[in-house]
């Protein structure tokens, strides 16, 4: 339930900021940065934590594993529902920002959705992969949290590193549109690889049944 409630709460907070931001005394550019930041950073954080939590928390995993195609598809459906809810809220908020003039980023419309979609999918894939590999919610969440926090700080220091420019999650708010499409595509491609890795690991029934190695 918290996984489904988080995105609407974030969306409402962002819409409130968009509505009353100018009246709060904050500079307009600050408010704009915060709105884009909430979209590019807040949404992926929710997606990453949800994806890191779900694979380790299935009380009926043994039952599902005993049914043909019962475990991984069920897990995927749960992820799809929670991430779908996050995506729906993010689409609604970004549409509202575009319509209200807060969105001044060079890419708008459908391409503009990659502002949140690419980092959200990447962090979700990382959380999913880490949870499958480490079989521990705490460990998977720690990695998601570290990467999320680290990316906030590395953006400035590593702006000139061409390899890092491909992998930076928050390129929109850090650097703007320079090299942005390639960054987004690279994030999506690596997210797919991480997700496939997680999917394969969860196919090992014995590993899943063993639970956390401690």
């Amino acid at each position, binding site marked *: 339930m918290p996984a489904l409630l988080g995105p609407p709460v974030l969306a409402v907070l962002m819409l409130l900021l968009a509505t009353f931001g100018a009246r709060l005394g904050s500079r307009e550019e600050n408010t704009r940065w915060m709105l884009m930041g909430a979209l590019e950073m807040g949404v992926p954080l929710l997606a990453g934590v949800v994806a890191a939590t779900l694979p380790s928390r299935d009380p009926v995993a043994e039952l599902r594993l005993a049914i043909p195609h019962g475990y991984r598809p069920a897990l995927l459906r749960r992820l799809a529902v929670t991430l779908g809810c996050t995506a729906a809220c993010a689409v609604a908020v970004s549409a509202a920002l575009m319509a209200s003039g807060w969105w001044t980023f060079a890419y708008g419309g459908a391409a503009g959705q990659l502002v949140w979609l690419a980092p959200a999918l990447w962090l979700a894939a990382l959380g999913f992969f880490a949870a499958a590999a480490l079989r521990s919610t705490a460990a998977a969440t720690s*990695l998601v949290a570290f990467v999320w926090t680290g990316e906030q*700080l590395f953006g400035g220091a590593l702006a000139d590193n061409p390899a890092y420019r491909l992998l930076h999650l928050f390129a929109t708010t850090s650097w703007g549109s320079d090299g942005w499409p390639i960054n987004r595509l690279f994030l999506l491609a690596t997210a797919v690889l991480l997700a496939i890795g997680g999917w394969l690991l969860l196919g090992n029934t014995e590993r899943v049944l063993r639970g956390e190695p401690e």
Partner: protein
Amino acid sequence: MIASLRYEFAMQVRRPSLWIVYGLVLAVMVAVLDYWSLDLDVYEVSVPKEAMGVAAQIIVTLLPIVYGCMLADRPSRDRVLRVDGILDTTPSGRTARLIGKYAGVCAATAVPLAITYFGRALLYVLVEGQPSALGWAAVTFLASILPGLVFVGALAFAGPLLLPPMVFRVLFVAYWFWGNLIPANLMPTLSHTVFSATGEYVRYGLLTPISPEYGRDSAVLDFLRPDHTPATAWLWIGVMIALAVVVLSLVRLHASRSES
């Protein structure tokens, strides 16, 4: 209390995922931040005291998030494993067990963090030939890192007991970024205040003093940002410990209400 401390420490410190996660994080720090380079290509590190301060700054910026997340699933572990029934029928006091568990889990989770920090100090001693760095590392760790960990540990200990775990994880990460890392002039924040857990009051007020005007823009909540002085350094240490006590008292109160 000692029994809980001893066994909770042993169980947490032998947890493989703790070392795997810290190992991965350290690998990223070395690869991305050039953590072992000693000067990070930015700082002047010929003075051991300053070098240890820089290392502490990097550590408390990035690692408490791992520290908090890795210990957050321990408070509810007894209930999840259904051991609480047996523990609660022993004559040991619940408050003593809570404190022992908190201290043991926090100490164990801080071990890899301390190894990362003191490892760098040792490398500094070997490369620079200044053994005093180890002493400064110990002082910096105790004064500028440990109080923050005491508070963050209490927060991560209490959060999952008072909130749904998934909500707590998101809020904890958001809190760490908002309350400790973002620039003070970006939005109203606890960052750089005496409530921030990053220990800068000790580093800049006690260990390597800097000018009061250095790097300061006016910001909301500036009344919580007194100048960096030895007095405010001690104030920060007191605030961290007091906050930890308050948070742990809330946990105990919550447990008492659940019992009744």
